[in-house]
């Protein structure tokens, strides 16, 4: 029973990290209609940055914040490449973000080499109802919960957040009332970078990160995001938690080598079921 609880809480922590990446995908897709393939890259950049900054002797807290800001900057640059030029279609933008992800490989190898890197996080563990949980896992869960609350407040209560939501629901009407949709798109990319960076900073102490970890991260994040049809953050969170728990349970009960297949298979099934429900016309007009 305590093993089950350990797996469950570890799974929730893994799911939270996936949820952060997925929420970045959702924010960017809602506002710009672009699926950002470089979303996993932001996490990798932030994780590697943090390990370097900590290695240089910067204190905890400062290093993490700096790394997240670097990821946000990376997000902004990706946005400039993907939607900076007028008339770029959503699918072209997907291919551009794919290019950005590969370009990041080159930069990351030059700066950090091709070996996985890790960073110290919160040490120690606590006992919850007889199950031993690493403190870092609890930190991941706590930060993610706080982030989602802040996101909800930002989109629901602030003027800027409402402008972003306006772009998401009707870009034409948003332009009519004087919202600069392109600027909002870039802002969404920066926010996506921020969320991705947060995930990277939280995950790096748990499992070492290297330049090509982004494929696993983005695939998991996308799998979670498709639960919410790439637009609904709450369902995305639920999907990510489900995915994280399912993967951790599979690993814990001896199917560890099939972790990736489970996540990917689940994603494909969800997408196909969703596609079956929507008629082709609505999908083409968007």
């Amino acid at each position, binding site marked *: 029973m305590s093993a089950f609880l350990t797996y469950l809480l570890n799974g929730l922590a893994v799911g939270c990290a996936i949820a952060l990446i997925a929420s970045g995908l959702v924010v960017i897709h809602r506002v710009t209609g672009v*699926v950002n393939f470089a979303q996993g890259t932001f996490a990798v950049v932030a994780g590697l940055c943090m390990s370097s900054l900590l290695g240089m002797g910067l204190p905890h807290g400062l290093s993490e914040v700096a790394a997240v800001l670097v990821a946000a900057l990376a997000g902004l640059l990706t946005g400039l*490449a993907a939607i900076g*030029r007028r008339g*770029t279609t*959503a*699918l*072209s933008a*997907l*291919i*551009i973000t*794919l*290019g*950005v*992800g*590969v*370009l990041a*490989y*080159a930069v990351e*190898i*030059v700066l950090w*080499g*091709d070996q996985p890197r890790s960073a110290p996080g919160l040490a120690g563990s606590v006992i919850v109802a007889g199950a031993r949980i690493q403190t870092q896992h609890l930190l991941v869960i706590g930060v993610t919960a706080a982030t989602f609350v802040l996101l909800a407040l930002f989109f629901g209560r602030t003027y800027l957040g409402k402008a972003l939501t306006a772009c998401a629901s009707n870009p034409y009407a948003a332009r009519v009332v004087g919202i600069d949709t392109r600027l909002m798109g870039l802002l969404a990319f920066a926010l996506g970078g921020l969320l991705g960076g947060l995930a990277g900073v939280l995950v790096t102490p748990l499992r070492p990160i290297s330049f090509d970890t982004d*494929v696993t991260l983005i*695939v998991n994040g*996308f799998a979670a995001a*498709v639960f919410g049809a790439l637009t609904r953050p709450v369902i995305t969170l639920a999907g990510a938690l489900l995915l994280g728990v399912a993967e951790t349970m599979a690993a814990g009960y001896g199917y560890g*080598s*099939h972790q*990736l*297949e489970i996540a*990917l*298979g689940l*994603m*494909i099934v969800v*997408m*196909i079921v969703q*596609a*079956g429900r929507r008629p*082709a*016309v609505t*999908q*083409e007009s968007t």
Partner: protein
Amino acid sequence: MIRLVAGLLVAAVTLALPAVLDDSALAVYILLGLAAMVTVGVSLLMGYAGQVSLGQGAFYAIGAYTAALLALGGVPPVAGLVAAPVVAAASALVIGVPLLRLRGHHLAFATLAMQLILLSLAGQLEFTGGDIGLQAIPQFSVGSFEAGSASAYAYLTWAGVALVMLVTHNVIASRPGRALRALATSETAAASSGIPVGRYKLVVFALSAAFAGLAGGIYCFYTGYVAPGSFPVLISIQYIVMAVVGGLGTIWGAVVGATAITLLVQGLNSLAALPGMPSYAPSVLSYAVYALVLIGVVLFLPHGLLPAVAGRLSRKRESLRAR
């Protein structure tokens, strides 16, 4: 007339090259031909059927493993080479029935997921040799003739390229080809005009998989071994880059794109191998080139290299005539 002469010239150069190139240059020439074969399929799929596949490397791998397993099992290599595209196409049909209900970025991610699943399976299963893969694959042979030299493989590869281009040309020029162009613009409109959208998409998916499978089959006989590491996700991205650079939906564009990217990467590799360059230089340079070329072309030459150059030439000719 100009087209015919140019075509004959290209064919003559293609046939003459294996005789004059040395072995290391021939290796590049063969890999270039194999990449061109897959890229023609990607270009057909993306340009004509409007579907993005990020998992074309999976069919390349299926072809390679099929030919390798059959050859190791004592089946004549010719049968293995024929089976490679057939098995790849058959798996595309099976995978395509559920997957092709998706479109756009969903399909892109689903095909990527398919390749990841396949690679992971190939790395774990007993009969595919796990992560080590399959080794000591016999040389390709027809009857008593054995393809021992690199130039024999070069001819085999480019015969394959010619076959793939011919098939694609005939598909595009046919009635289904026009139907494909229609469904790439709007599936709803195409379906209303009586085009069996689902079936046509599936057939093109299978056809492009067959091209990749054929290339994979030749690859496994040429290198003599296959392993999951030979088919990374980057290889699928590379085919997209080549197709986009050459110009989607043009047969010659795919070949031009494959040539341009392969030569560029080779040139940079030899640059990176110069003394004084850091050990990570080759991979960094090739990543950077793929990325920058892809982003640059999508942003500034959305129709690709070949149509852009051809368009400029024809405009120049017109302006000369107008004078």
